[in-house]
């Protein structure tokens, strides 16, 4: 079971869903906070859902206040770096670039992609944590190759 967990985690890294930061989080996990990584991830997804909804509303308004959108995305990007959400972060950067040049269409497209990545990661991590809990005490972190 633990091997399965390990494999899933490795694939997350390999596929670029997660980066170094995730490993850092795992290294922070200790006896005092045995479920630290999961707690952080939960917190992230809760907060990022709020941010996504903010951006969504701003986009739906159709006015395309790029400054405001960029601010939101800045926040979102910062948040996403916290758990090492690599693909999500990439989409954030692209979105901000579109904001910078005032490309509304680009923003909308990127945002859609961003939401997709975000949802995917969420699901995968939920799976991972569930398995990990079932498997028992977490193994030590392994750096992604």
């Amino acid at each position: 079971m633990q091997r399965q967990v390990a494999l899933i985690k490795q694939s997350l890294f390999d596929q670029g869903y997660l980066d170094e930061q995730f490993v850092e989080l795992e290294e922070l996990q200790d006896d005092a906070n045995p479920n630290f990584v999961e707690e952080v991830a939960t917190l992230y997804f809760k907060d990022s859902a709020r941010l996504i909804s903010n951006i969504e509303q701003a986009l739906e308004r159709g006015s395309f206040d790029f400054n405001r959108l960029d601010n939101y995305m800045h926040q979102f990007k910062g948040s996403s770096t916290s758990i090492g959400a690599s693909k999500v972060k990439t989409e954030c950067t692209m979105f901000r670039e579109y904001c910078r040049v005032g490309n509304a269409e680009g923003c909308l497209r990127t945002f859609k992609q961003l939401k997709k990545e975000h949802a995917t990661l969420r699901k995968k991590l939920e799976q991972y944590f569930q398995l990990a809990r079932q498997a028992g005490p977490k193994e030590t972190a392994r750096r992604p190759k």
Partner: protein
Amino acid sequence: MEKGFSPVGLRVLVVDDDPTWLKILEKMLKKCSYEVTTCGLAREALRLLRERKDGFDIVISDVNMPDMDGFKLLEHVGLELDLPVIMMSVDGETSRVMKGVQHGACDYLLKPIRMKELKIIWQHVLRKKLQEVRDIEGCCYDVGADWFTQAQFLGGGEDVSFGKKRKDFDFEKKLFQDESDQSSSSKKARVVWSYELHQKFVNAVNQIGCDHKAGPKKILDLMNIPWLTRENVASHLQKYRLYLSRLEKGKEIKCYSGGVKNMDSPPKDAEINSGHQSPGKSSSYAFLKATETDPKQLAPASVSDPTSGVHMPPKAKKTRIGYDPPNSSGVFDSLLPWNDVPDPLESKPPILYENSFLQQQPLPSQSSYVANSAPSLMQEEMKPSYVNEDEFLMPQDKNSTVILQDMDLSAPFSSNATSNTDSIPGSLNWELPEAHHSGSLDTDLDFTWLHGEHFFANSGLQNFQFQDYTSSTSLLSEPPPHLWYGNDRLPDPDEYTLMVDQGLFIS
């Protein structure tokens, strides 16, 4: 020298509106064995910091926060509390980082932040502590001690004014001692202004005279001491002027020619300004901390725009000499242009002027006015360094009237009697009604130093400034007056009158 400084237990305040990062940072910092307090709002953080003034060693804050700009928080913390602040952001754009540095951040970290980066943040706390101690103990003690010793050795009790001085010496000596006791015992190598060295200095200054620009460089050249630097001379000159200004208050008649004539040569002060500005920050900064007065203000000058520094004194000088305004408001007006860029040096010369005015007042009515306005002037001048125009405008008028009522200086200035001189220092030691906060100018100026060109209009600062200035004058060590007397050229009475007539304080 830091008795047992340890990174363990460092009290860190983390401010970030991102709850995920707040949680992560808290865990990371705890793993570094720090004592962590988290805060999700900038305002809340400020409140916490103010509540527990000595409760934290360092602040880590995100740049982008909804309720307050991270840079603003940075300013506040630096200004009010003198704590090292580390900025964080996911954005590593040069302009942002630069802004952080300009606002006084001691470091700028990029998210995602690694443990290894947090493990060494204690260095900023230690560095700051070391700087503080170094500066406090440095100049003041070394420079002062010698003068004191010499003065007491050489001074007798015969000379009435010197006798009075003796009292001041004791007072100042005590202050010095207190300071040195409080500071750490380790000393840096500094120029110790021995009696001989100081004499050479005074000779050089007098040689140059007031008609020319007695700038540090000229003085240095005249002194012809190979190992002495212009910075050394510049800072000593500043102290000397402060000393003179005190002297003049004490002995109305004695007008130090250097001080008086200085008014005529704005460029000279400009030179001094630039002299102060160009030397390494370390020298100015040292002065700042050391004497807790103008030198402190000097430090900002060295970081601030030199040109504005150059501009200011000339304006002030003109006013002093009475080129323009016949009334007090004119005086104050002339000070207004100074507001933009803090230039500590500019406040220095004016004080000299005031003193010369003070001592020259032959007419009681005028003298009382002068006496009253002079301190207020001094106060005002101190203020502009740190305050923007608007703030400056308001206190002025208030000050002048208040001082008129409260200051009892008319009597002393009409004669040279001992009793008068005695009373002068008393009153001049300045329990001026308005401004007294017992703030620590040290820290404030520390901020200004830290923040380079950023002088935040903080009303608190004005008061701090002034108070410290006043106390600083008493801190000045004074060489035996009689030694100076010989070198001085007392202005003619006619000169006095002339100045008075042209003076600002004509009511």
